[in-house]
């Protein structure tokens, strides 16, 4: 999960994906397959089978966000569920409830609920109250 470098976060759309330029604003739903790079702003819902990258100037605000991985250097504010491997880079502002996994860089601003699946260490397993095990 920590394999996203700053440079890979700057990747462009490539085949089939989309790039929202810094002067562009989308209001509505963005869906489909392919990577989505946001330098501008999206207000609404995002559901892509691919990587979502929100660059420094970019912002995604609105409802649910669903992507394979989500890398944020700009702003992400979601009232609905955020699903995917979320990486919050330094300088970004993120407010959401995330399900999947999260990596927070030092200096990143995050508020919200984290629902991450992971294996409990053996000494905590079978301890009674928190028996949740996950895929990762």
């Amino acid at each position, binding site marked *: 999960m920590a394999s996203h470098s700053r440079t890979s976060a700057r990747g462009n759309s490539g085949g*089939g*994906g*989309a790039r929202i330029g*810094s*002067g*562009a604003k*989308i209001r*509505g739903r963005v869906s*489909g*397959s392919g990577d989505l790079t946001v330098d501008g702003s999206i207000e609404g819902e995002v559901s892509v089978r691919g990587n979502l990258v929100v660059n420094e100037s970019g912002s995604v605000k609105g409802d649910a966000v669903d992507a394979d991985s989500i890398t944020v250097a700009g702003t992400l504010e979601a009232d609905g569920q955020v699903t995917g491997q979320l990486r919050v880079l330094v300088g970004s502002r993120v407010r959401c409830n995330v399900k999947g996994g999260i990596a927070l860089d030092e200096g990143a601003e995050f508020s919200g609920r984290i629902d991450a699946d992971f294996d409990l260490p053996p000494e905590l397993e079978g301890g009674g109250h928190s028996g949740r095990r996950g895929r990762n």
Partner: protein
Amino acid sequence: MASTVIGAGITIDGEITTDEDVVVEGTIRGKLTAKDSVSIEAGAVVEADVIGGPLTVAGTVTGNITSSDRVDLQGGAKVIGNVKATRITIADGAQFKGNVDMDV
């Protein structure tokens, strides 16, 4: 490279507004407004009113097209809707159903 690219795999239901240029290879339903050039590539499906600067269409547009400059319907383009621009070309092989308003 264009500022904003809507790739072939992507669908947007809603409104896109930009003061830059746009390349559409995927699907847009709603409205597309750009201050700079708009290119609707072959295979793209736009069910929306399109407003832009220089506008090139090689894909399918269902909706009205308005350009502050020129509109080029290329071979293979399919446009159902009215086109308003100062200069318009319709290439051989382009399908077009609608009115042309050249503001004369």
